[in-house]
């Protein structure tokens, strides 16, 4: 083979692998992506049953119910709308009423959100960014969420 032919083989196989990779990605993007939605989005955009989404907001205070077995029910709110959520399993360590949460799953026909994954904050002073943005949009963001992270009455200076 000449140098030119070898280069052609090389470039040809590189393009081939890339094409396969792009095909795989496009295929995967169709089936495995979850859009983030706040409860208001769910209502406003008429997200239908079966569509996989990430529902984010605050766990409504007083809404947490432990049903029989490991079934857990609570409501996610952004101050305007609420969506009932059910989840089978053990909740993450930092799951609390009145605090931020992201649930991934699908809506069923009755309008209840069937979560198969629950993410809560990793830290007492930290809230998922999607939830922060959603709360800011719905006008229910309180500055105290941010201030909680700062010092009580001491100022930091050099």
């Amino acid at each position, binding site marked *: 083979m000449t140098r030119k032919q070898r280069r052609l083989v090389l470039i040809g196989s590189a393009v081939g692998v890339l094409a396969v990779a792009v095909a795989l990605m496009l295929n995967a993007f169709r089936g*495995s992506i979850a859009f983030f939605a706040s409860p208001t989005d769910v209502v406003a955009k008429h997200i239908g049953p079966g569509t996989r989404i990430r529902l984010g907001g605050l766990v409504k205070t007083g809404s947490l119910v432990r049903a029989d077995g490991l079934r857990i029910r609570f409501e996610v709110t952004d101050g305007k709308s609420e969506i009932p959520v059910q989840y089978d399993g053990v909740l993450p360590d930092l799951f609390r009423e009145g605090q931020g949460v992201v649930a991934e799953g699908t809506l069923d026909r009755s309008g209840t959100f069937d979560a198969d994954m629950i993410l809560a904050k990793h*830290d007492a002073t930290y809230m998922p960014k999607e939830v922060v*943005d959603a709360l800011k949009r719905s006008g229910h963001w309180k500055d105290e969420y941010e201030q909680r992270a700062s010092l009580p009455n001491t100022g930091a200076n050099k």
Partner: protein
Amino acid sequence: MIPELGHYALILALGVALVQGTMPIVGARSNDRLLMSMAVPAALAQFALIAIAFLALTECYVTSDFSVFNVYENSNTTMPLIYRLTSVWGNHEGSMMLWVSILVFFGALVAIFGGNLPMALKANALGVQAWIAAAFELFILTTSNPFLRIANPPFEGRDLNPILQDPGLAFHPPMLYLGYVGFSITFSFAIAALLEGRIDAAWARWVRPWVLVAWMCLTLGIAGGSYWSYYELGWGGFWFWDPVENASLMPWLAGTALLHSAVVMEKREALKVWTVLLAILAFSLSLMGTFLVRSGVLTSVHAFATDPSRGVFILGILIVFIGGALSLYAWRAPLLKQGGLFAPISREGALVFNNLFLVTACATVLIGTLYPLALDALTKEKISVGPPFFDATFGPLFIPLMIAMPFGPLMGWKRGDLVGAAQRLLAAAMLAAVAMAAAFAVERGGPVLAPFGIGIAVFVMAGAVTDIVERTMVLRLPLRAAASRAIGLPRSAWGTAFAHFGIGVTLLGIVSVTAWGSEHLAEIKRGGSIDIAKYRVTFDGILNRNGSNYQDLVGHFTVHRGTELIGTMEPSRRTFPDRGMATTEAALMSRGVSQLYLSIGDPNKDGSLPVRLYFKPYVLLIWLGALFMFFGGALSLSDRRLRVGAPRPAKARPVKPALQPAE
């Protein structure tokens, strides 16, 4: 006093870095030996100053000096000393200090051990290294100063994030940073070569040990992080395709590709331009990982604090270094002469195949990680790209790579013999087929693809053994002769075999856990029990236990196999009053390389306890494989030709007579 000393040393280090970043490079351009020779003392001074700053910060933590804001925020007098030490880097500011410390440590190593480097190359490389150091020192000083004081010091600190109060913190970040930052050396060498417009096989020989060190540390760092999240987060998962994990996986993939292409360059002077590009990419991806993790654009356990000015600053560093390096590459790379020719079927060809698939896989991970960010920035639409995406793209790309892996080392340079290699791999392939059949036979309800995964894993492992068997001719020669051949083999050949074997081991663990792991969620009353795999786990009761800065609510469980008592498990809920946080401390019981994994939730009012019980078959293989890879890397590193910088004596390469007739 101590914090101010550290702060001052940090500022001085920035000054030295600016000198080190200009004078030697100017010297290299004008061929001024005096200016070039400034690089070494400057790199050493830089290291000394940063060491002072880092030790000063450590001292503040050890003595619990809460007048330092950073210490107040992340430490507490009740924490054991080991966590007070590790919390130095268990926060944003301190972790950046660790980053810079490792960076200048590597710079000092180049300065000390680079005696046989050409003067201009060394001056340029250390100069580039200094620019990176200067950028990060400036970043720390302007946006993330760990030495800030509080006017009215409080009596007690706020404690470290409980998730980080774990021995894993002592190990995972430093290892990961050694890996990330190790690639800065190869980056600097690549830029130095571009500045000079000259590159040869010797360059690859100088660079390869650094690639190896970085790759080894990154391998262990990723594996360590994976094991940490496995036992600490209480979900029993070892890999979540979390963007932060991806941020460490991408440099690993690029680094693995670099490791292999550097071999081609060293042996055959081919793929020069490509190797330089990979060296730039590996470090660029490391930088991007730092940006993604530290800027707060991602939500993760690693995002310590979200301060927009930091994100913008790191983004600036990113743009300058990656953009600058790639522009320089576009401008200067055509100057680098093309190297040796090779046929597509050859050792070089196999390594190109490896590079092609690794880089493509890396690109899919990159797109999957950045796409949600780009979409959010452009359309405000928020999406998450989760495990299904990566399973559907990364997996199929890795399968051909795994199948091809055993062939590579069996091919000759320049022109290989695919049929011959296939014949020699026949035994390995048959073993793989047997394993696959066995997996099919014993499988109960697992995914259909799992036996194929087992088959591929066994093929990779057996292929690595085949390579050594063929090289030592242990099956054809008397044992004594084979043993002397084994000793005579270059250590890098053993290293290759071990690392490849490790990949197979890891794959075996991943496949068996994913396919045959079982999970049991239940609410369990006192005296109740759960059966899983061949084990019976019985709940005996709850007890309370106090730690130094936490309270444990411990569930006491006994484990039986048949009628035989094999041990107790004590998972707990750990509450940290200073932060008002709780963590799940899972209990693990190893049975061979399989594990029982038990974690508990908060007890219900009626006294029952929600539990998660997993059986993880062969799970430890995942991390054991990483140890094999590390060991293989270490063997390669000790290879004579890497220790001795001088060109290798013209010794005959490992011969495989009789089987490979000259074509």
